[in-house]
């Protein structure tokens, strides 16, 4: 078990939540002791930009955009709000001049690192950053379309939640990229597309063409799709559905397992209607 999983487990096993009051930007907010301040802010609709936070994973602290100032022992300190925990009387400021100044510099760095990302451009614009002083990283061959910000969400989801471990961080420092082993196709991929769902900059390219799903960004890995015998559409990756079905006990019957969800619902609806009209 990685320490991250241990600490998440500890979270879940914590005793009954104990309510506290925290003050964010002068506003009094209710929270549970130990709750992540970013979560409190989201709930209270106080805007703190964030890119690498995912509630189902332990805090990662990579994007640095969610940094806030808070009062500790009479001094203002800075911390990422995804790792800052609520305690009674905690005072947090999300938009001080200092925070804004650092945030803008970081956004300039993001504009240079992911110059083709519309999401980044929008976010930067929100804080008054429309251009960057720094050299833009442009690679025409980039499988992630010059949109990747190395937030790690795809890697962590694929590793820790899906369990397929298709891609990882390769190299280190400014040479880091997210890729498959040896930058080639990886047959471990189930084609679930959780990576694309979780990517904040929509950098992951996937092609859905007929019988195959192509994970273009992951070495153009081809994933075979399952064909519905009833309607003829391709609806789910074979490997993924096989894995999921294998976990169901007692196993699904053929009429459900091999049919696509739309046909399934329509079959069930027809069966209900027939049964209902039959009863009358």
């Amino acid at each position, binding site marked *: 078990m990685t320490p991250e999983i241990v600490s998440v487990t500890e979270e879940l096993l914590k005793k009954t939540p104990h309510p506290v009051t925290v003050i964010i930007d002068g506003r009094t907010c209710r929270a549970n002791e130990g709750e992540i301040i970013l979560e409190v802010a989201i709930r209270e609709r106080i805007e703190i930009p964030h890119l690498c936070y995912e509630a189902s994973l332990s805090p990662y602290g990579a994007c640095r955009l969610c940094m806030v100032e808070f009062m500790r022992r009479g001094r203002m300190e800075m911390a990422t709000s995804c790792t800052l925990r609520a305690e009674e009387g905690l005072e947090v400021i999300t938009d001080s001049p200092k925070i804004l100044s650092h945030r803008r510099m970081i956004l300039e760095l993001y504009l240079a690192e992911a110059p083709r990302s519309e999401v980044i451009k929008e976010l930067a614009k929100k804080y008054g950053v429309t251009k960057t002083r720094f050299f833009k990283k442009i690679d025409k061959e980039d499988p992630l379309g010059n949109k990747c910000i190395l937030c790690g969400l795809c890697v962590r989801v694929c*590793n820790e939640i899906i369990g397929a*471990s*298709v*891609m*990882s*961080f*390769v*190299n*280190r*420092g*400014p*040479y880091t990229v997210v890729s*498959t*082993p*040896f930058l080639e196709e*990886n047959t*471990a991929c189930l084609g679930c597309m959780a990576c694309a769902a979780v990517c904040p900059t929509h950098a992951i390219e996937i092609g859905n063409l007929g019988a195959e799903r192509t994970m273009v960004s992951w070495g153009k890995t081809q994933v075979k799709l399952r064909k519905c015998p009833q309607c003829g559409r391709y609806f789910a990756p074979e490997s993924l559905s096989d894995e999921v079905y294998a976990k169901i006990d007692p196993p699904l019957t053929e009429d459900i397992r091999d049919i696509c969800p739309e046909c399934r619902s329509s079959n069930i609806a027809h069966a209900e209607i027939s049964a209902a009209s039959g009863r009358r």
Partner: protein
Amino acid sequence: MDEQALDAIISAYDSPSGRLLGILGDIQNTHRYIPRESLEMLSWKLDIPLSQLYSVVTFYSFFTLIPIGEHRITVCMGTACHVKGAGEILKNLEKLLGFPEGITEEQRSPVTTKDNVFTLEIARCFGACSIAPVLKVDNTLYGYAKAEDVPGILEEYGWKKDDY
């Protein structure tokens, strides 16, 4: 790498602490690089996803997936060595071994001559700062090195002027 040899390496580590880096280091010491097949074999033997192993091998400077030449020349670019002129030594080596573009200091990728005889790379500190600048060829350290010493040192390993 044959399976028996790999099993022997793995069995030397009974505790998980330090095991992976230890095993990879032993593979590297055996072959002077980490062959792809070894990594793939290791993945199913240790039940660690290949993507994770690949991530580890590409993260740490010590590991290389590309074979190293017969002789490995490492120039220390630590602070004391830098202050004492390591840059000149590196430049001279790059010239004499035929690497006009030089090695990117930040990236630290080793470069190897086409005939696979010499690999040139930099290190960030051997901890031999008192005898700076330091040059290492295979397992021998040369202290108080000077740029003019380089041809003589290379000749000890079979280099000849105008070879590259």
